[in-house]
């Protein structure tokens, strides 16, 4: 993500989307993120991987990413091409894993009620705004150093950049 702006189709899910359905346990031996991406959301939505496009956005309810600490859940979504996740709330380990993987995430309690599966959404991270096509919603942006980690592509590229 370079400009701090994204535009993509909405994949809408409910509450408590857990990391087992995002990235099933039988694939935990995989080490290549592109292989991981092939199984993203497999136990929740078998249509996801074949129908999603790079740049799409996930909009979800409460407690997204709950359950196992598997970072593969964040990695597979990023490598599948998801450009951001907006949820009412996130489980804590997934929240950290998403940032560390360079996957933008935003907390917004009102958005799920205002969007439909398949519609287009625009997010401006710098301005802290989400545009649904009907209205602009202000959201608290991420702290600057976290945005920088995401812009750098994740915690490791960020650390390497800092070390010079």
């Amino acid at each position, binding site marked *: 993500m370079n400009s701090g702006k994204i535009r993509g189709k909405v994949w809408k899910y409910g509450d408590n989307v857990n990391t087992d359905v995002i990235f099933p346990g039988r694939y935990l031996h995989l080490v290549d993120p592109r292989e991981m991406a092939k199984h993203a959301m497999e136990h929740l939505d078998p249509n996801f991987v074949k129908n999603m496009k790079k740049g799409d956005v996930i909009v979800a309810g409460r407690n997204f990413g709950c359950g196992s600490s598997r970072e593969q859940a964040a990695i597979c979504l990023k490598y599948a091409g998801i450009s951001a996740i907006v949820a009412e709330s996130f489980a804590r380990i997934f929240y950290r894993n998403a940032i560390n993987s360079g996957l933008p995430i935003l907390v917004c309690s009102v958005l799920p009620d205002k969007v439909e599966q398949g519609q287009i959404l625009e997010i401006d991270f710098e301005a802290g705004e989400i545009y649904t096509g009907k209205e602009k919603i202000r959201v608290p942006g991420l702290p600057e150093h976290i945005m920088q980690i995401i812009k750098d592509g994740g915690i490791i590229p960020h650390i*390497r950049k800092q070390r010079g």
Partner: protein
Amino acid sequence: MSEKILSRTSGREAEAGDIVDARVDIAMSHDNAVLVSKVFKEIGVEKVWDKEKIVILFDHRVPANTVETAKGHKKVREFVKAQGIKNFYNIRVGVCHQVLSELGHVRPGELIVGTDSHTTTHGAFGTFSTGIGVSDMAAVWATGNLWLRVPETIKMTVEGGFPEKVMSKDLILHIIGEVKSDGANYKAVEFSGPTIDEMSIASRMTITNMSMEMGAKAALIAPDEKTLEYIKKRSKREFHPVSSDTDAEYECEYVFDVIDLEPQVACPHSVDNVKVIDEVEGITIDQAVLGSCTNGRLEDLEVAAKILDGKRISIDVRMIVIPSSWEVYLEAMNLGILKTFIEAGAIIVNAGCGPCLGAHEGILAAGERCIASTNRNFQGRMGDTKSEVYLASPATVASSALMGEITDPRG
């Protein structure tokens, strides 16, 4: 307690809401050490910060179930050798959250991080123990530190004596059913009260282990004589236990009384979908799993064995017993408990995570139902997405295996 531990490890007075840079005392990884080491190498630091503070063992897929897993294990062994990591246990010990304290790596007052969400288990010994992802762990391996936000604490007081055949698993399932899967999100939960005091270490570990399923960052029980007796047998190192001040501030408090607690069952497909046993009695099952970091200890096997002693499980049920460590396995063997299970028609598998996460040793086909003493029942967790997992106590699992359907262990 969380404030005290995170203050000590960050070298500053910290309160709930503060962000600290904390010094890690123990960093634990299992099969996913292969990913941690991959990320660690990308950082570009040559050596881990402290080869005595890292603990690595394999438990999720042991012995290696596929060529891919075998490759991963091999890479970890090579890494461990190159780094001189002292505490590497290969496939020899059992489930990480059981063996960490058995092997003397848990000491009250310390900060433990693990690349596994059920790292909260070790809070039963008065530690601040929390799960992190592989990238955070790679950063710990490189620097020895991790930034953490000091959580607010929820106090849960438990009173009353458990009725016959009702266990700590029933209590924590009931709690999760009440507060829901995000009820303790980002928070530390402190358990106290006469019921907790009375509990064995094993029962306390079930409570702190399952606290993850209400979103807890950490779950703590203040160390007492029982804790100190256990720890001192296994760790020779000095430690500094902490407990909360009497005027400590909590975000909120819950009080639970177990005197009338009935066996509880978490129904598909979420851990907070908890029902009282009489609402689910009679549902037929195909598989029963007794084991895991939640309920695979000697106490759990003993309760189940007592129910199955001299009897045969239903012909239509596959019962899989998984002692959570080789220490537990050996003790169960010496006490004749394993014989009881085998004679009842159950099978015993090696200490490890087994089917809990859907890796191997008991996968479910579409349409099959399992009752398990494990910790998660998300859709497809133990096999096909059209299979179902019910979570319960070891007593309920054993009684259900006997009858071939979900059964109240109280009779």
